[in-house]
């Protein structure tokens, strides 16, 4: 079977797509782990928000 013309350009474009999508997924997953780990460390040190002790958070407290 003959490879289509310009197969290298098509492969490079799809390769770029895979790299960009994989990088975005890795970025959000690793960042989530990092923030969760830091929050857990701070909470084990006894640091907590006033709102965390209240049943519902007000919108302005997270700004």
């Amino acid at each position: 079977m003959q490879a289509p013309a310009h197969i290298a350009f098509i492969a490079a474009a799809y390769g770029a797509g895979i790299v960009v999508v994989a990088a975005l997924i890795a970025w959000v997953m690793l960042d989530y782990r990092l923030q969760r780990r830091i929050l857990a460390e701070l909470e084990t040190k006894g640091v907590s928000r006033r709102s965390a002790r209240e049943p519902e958070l007000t919108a302005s407290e997270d700004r």
Partner: protein
Amino acid sequence: MRISELANPSRFLRVANLAIPWLGGATVIVFAYAIYRAMLAPDDYQQGATVKIMFLHVPSAWLGMLCWGLMTVAALGTLVWRHPLADVTAKAAAPLGAAFTLLCLVTGSLWGRPEWGTYWVWDARLTSELILFLLYLGVIALWRTVEDPSRAARGVAILTLVGAVDLPIIKFSVDWWNTLHQGTSVFRLGGSTIDSTILVPLLLMAAAFTLLFVTLLLAAMRNEILRRRVRTLRLLQASAAG
């Protein structure tokens, strides 16, 4: 639940935690089917197999512009209504928009070389798309430069509103100027000029990319809310220590 109730970050986190796995699953399924249909799509009678680059190039171009449009709405939310999630949305969306715009530029260059004989020309469509990418980099740099998130949000909002001028320029550049880039061929008066055997896989890929974008945006917004909680706790820790 009303949409406005999601303005509460804790409620937003609960909804995001529920929605992200389902959206992620839906993204994988739609992508699998869209790629299958894209592989079955016939070669174009003029462009041959390189038309398959369109299945990546066009959705990433749409998302790059859609993302800036979303950031423009968020900028209004920050400046006018001071919506609690508006600047979170803007900050989370910027790297996603930058990535999709970069993918649009890269795939466009790789499509241009065999079709036009060059990777790049300074025509209106390509240049305005490059300006969008540089605007994204500017927004990301501004977020990183100003330490206080609410001060950074106001500066970013103004830059975003100014940058929104680029969106109609990108869209209509192929009508306003003579460009090497092809004219509007999907959403146009009189119907699409693309045959359904190529149009259907293209729209499926666009749906898959949009689902991916929504999933990543919710995840990045969740991360940003957690990052602000970390900042608040560190400030509390520092004030308690001082």
